[in-house]
């Protein structure tokens, strides 16, 4: 592996905006043949957008992509594939209704029109063995495989495409250590044949152990490209965060001997996702679950909200057991949930702001089932004020709002109910700009001050430090540590990206 070889892939001044969001601006870096090149950066830094432009899923607003010296116009997935770009997308992109073999052959340009499943058998078998799926049958339906195994199938597919550039966007986020090791070995083998590899990851340990150079992005721009030899986890964290990492989370005034626990979760497990999670939460405080994709933090929140039918364990609100797997039961018990996917599991985008804010409060604003204009507008005014929205726009559709304001509406919906005891938020400020984020933080802090229990998940250090009274770090489905007291940002980041590993294990 050499980081100095001739550059096979080169991007210059790549720029892409979504509406008013500048996702990527002026990103430039190169990848040598045989190099494993890491792309790091905080959530929303623009990594996946770069990946999408390289893989033909988005067209850049400006800038150039060169592979093997030729400037390419990658305007579709097929063109990118023909130009030799193979991709493991950030989102799992295999089809559960197909068999493993079919998934491996899906979209394979070299395959031709004939389906040569038999002829391809040995090659596909080798691909699977290569990523540690020796136990998986080629003709097994993918739906019989676990999430991690499915991810490995997608990785095997990309590895098998014989590409000039292999892109992996957070390939190991849902994999166990053993599974990840197979991926590392496979990736190294591909690099050894002189291909370029772009490896996007939040797991800093693996970045340092696997890659040759690291390009760090922050707020859509490239901060630096550095050879790993000169990096440690801490110096990488410094690059990713800029000035922030040395802040401490200060102990807040409220103390643990406050009132009795409102929410009590014990032995919560979701097969393959979360293992034996227990927690007790007191009113008036803000709790955070800190964990990257695949850490199980989202799953814990969803299970408490009754949205995971396969969850086991006990959930009690004020000592009363909540019927598991029933969102309506959770709602009745005083649990409100703000999903991380506000588009498909949160807001009603084409409905007015007012409808969205009051969606869960219909019984309170109706009399004999009929909407009481008086109650409706009183409740609405209060909520609009609470959320800091423009009251004059409450008849506009939520879709017409900016992302940040949409999120305020979503969070505000949970706040407006007097019967809510516990507010659960899954990554509440994902894709929200700085101003919006601050506003949402204020909302949550106010809610806690009014006696609500707030539990949110986040990957964002600043958010964890600014907002949470208690931070619980999670890694690969288990709790790493609970921080009731002071904690430094880098410690949290280390636990999130690295688990409870000892410093000695850091450099592989």
């Amino acid at each position: 592996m050499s980081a100095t070889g001739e550059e096979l892939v080169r991007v210059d001044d790549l720029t892409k905006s979504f509406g008013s969001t500048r996702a990527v601006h002026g990103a430039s870096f190169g990848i040598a043949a045989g190099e494993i090149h890491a792309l790091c950066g905080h959530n929303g830094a623009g990594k996946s957008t770069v990946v999408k432009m390289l893989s033909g899923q988005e067209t850049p607003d400006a800038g150039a992509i060169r592979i093997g010296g030729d400037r390419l116009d990658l305007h579709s997935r097929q063109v990118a594939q023909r130009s030799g770009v193979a991709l493991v997308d950030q989102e799992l992109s295999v089809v559960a209704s197909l068999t493993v073999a079919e998934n491996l052959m899906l979209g394979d340009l070299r395959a031709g029109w004939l389906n040569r499943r038999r002829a391809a058998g040995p090659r596909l078998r080798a691909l699977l063995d290569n990523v540690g799926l020796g136990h998986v049958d080629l003709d097994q339906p993918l739906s019989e495989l676990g999430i991690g195994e499915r991810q490995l199938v997608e990785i095997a597919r990309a590895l098998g495409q014989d590409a000039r550039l292999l892109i992996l966007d957070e390939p190991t986020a849902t994999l166990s250590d053993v599974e990840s090791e197979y991926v590392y070995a496979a990736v190294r083998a591909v690099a050894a044949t002189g291909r370029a590899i772009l490896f996007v990851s939040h797991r800093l340990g693996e970045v340092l152990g696997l890659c040759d150079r690291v390009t760090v992005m922050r707020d859509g721009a490239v901060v630096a490209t550095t050879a790993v030899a000169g990096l440690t986890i801490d110096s990488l964290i410094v690059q990713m965060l800029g000035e922030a990492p040395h802040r401490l989370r200060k102990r807040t005034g409220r103390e643990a001997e406050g009132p009795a626990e409102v929410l009590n979760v014990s032995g919560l497990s979701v097969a393959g996702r979360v293992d034996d999670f227990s927690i007790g939460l007191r009113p008036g405080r803000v709790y955070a679950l800190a964990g990257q994709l695949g850490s199980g933090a989202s799953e814990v929140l969803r299970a408490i909200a009754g949205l995971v039918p396969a969850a086991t364990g006990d959930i009690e609100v004020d000592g009363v057991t909540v019927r598991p797997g029933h969102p309506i039961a959770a709602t009745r018990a005083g649990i409100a949930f703000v999903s991380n996917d506000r588009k498909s599991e949160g807001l009603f985008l084409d409905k007015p702001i007012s409808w969205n804010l009051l969606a869960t409060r219909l019984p309170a604003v109706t009399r004999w089932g009929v909407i009481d204009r008086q109650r409706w507008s009183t409740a609405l005014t209060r909520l609009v004020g609470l959320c800091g929205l423009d009251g004059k726009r409450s008849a506009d559709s939520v879709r017409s709002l900016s992302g940040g304001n949409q999120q305020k509406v979503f969070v505000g919906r949970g706040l407006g109910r007097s019967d809510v005891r516990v507010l659960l938020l899954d990554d509440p400020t994902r894709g929200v700009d700085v101003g919006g984020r601050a506003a949402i933080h204020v909302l949550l802090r106010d809610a806690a001050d009014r006696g609500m229990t707030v539990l949110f998940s986040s990957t964002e250090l600043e958010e964890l430090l600014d907002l949470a009274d208690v931070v619980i770090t999670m890694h690969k489905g288990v709790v790493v540590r609970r921080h009731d007291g002071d904690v430094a940002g880098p410690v949290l980041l280390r636990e999130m990206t690295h688990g409870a590993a000892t410093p000695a294990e850091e450099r592989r």
Partner: protein
Amino acid sequence: MKPPSFRRPEASLPVAALVLTIIAFVLIPTYTDTALSSFDVYNTLQIFARLGLLTLALGLTMIAGEFDLSVVGTYALGGMLTVQAGQQHWAWGLLAALGAGAAVGLLQGGLIARLKIPSMPVTLATYIALLGLTSALSGGLTKTYANVTVTLWVDQPVLTYFSPRSLITLGLFAAAAAVLSLSRWGRELRAIGGDRRAGRVAGVRVDRLIVGTFAASGVLSALGGSLLSFSLGSANPDPGVQPLIVAAAAALLGGVSLAGGRGHPLGLLGGILAVALLAEIVAVAAVPQYVSQLFFAGLLGIIVVIDAPDLHSALVRQRTRLRPSHHPRTSI
């Protein structure tokens, strides 16, 4: 895409349906006083030939995650064009029908793929429009096809059990099965039906595939109408909704999933054969038609309830709660 193993619904459903109906068929002499004859098999295949292509057309779009309600409209139009344009020579009629079917399919597929409109309202509108067009073409009258030679030819017994019509239909099922098994289209069709985003990311040309599927669906339904017209020696401007409903039932029995992404032409063949056998049993055993309707209702009801997602969650919930709390392997 090889024919799937029997554990999976796309194989087990049609096989179960077929086995059940075959048993009921073979046992006919025990519960009626009619003996079975080779003709009963011939007639079953004739019923199959009447609805087979419709089932194949609808089934293919269902595998791709769409739903082509217009198949019966194309079926009616194809039959009418066959008669009206084919008075000189049957080939002209056939050509007109297939051309119209392809055009209808391309138009619908284009609208659905390019504009990303849900297929149901579009195909419903074309269904109504095509029935109107057929009726306008014929003045609302059943049109007679004078060429009795063709009528006799398509239904003459071949090898005791078959007729050219049922052989053509069987051949098209075999061709569809071969194409979907031997080419990449099979897996790509099921990929875009099962998870369109994942298919697109993997590099499947989703739009082309949708247009192609609808075109195939149009051609197959038009051909189904043509063959029926040849066989009946006439074309009826309004076949009613029954063929559509029976074809949908057959496709579902054939293991096609409501959610798309599942199914195989051989499964569809099993489904429609089961339906044809049932119809033949009804005819031979002189069972009242409403009994077979109730039977269909039961079958479809079971399929739809088994497939219902929230029922699934409820079952999962039930199972996890009955299990003593244990610690599963964490494979994260």
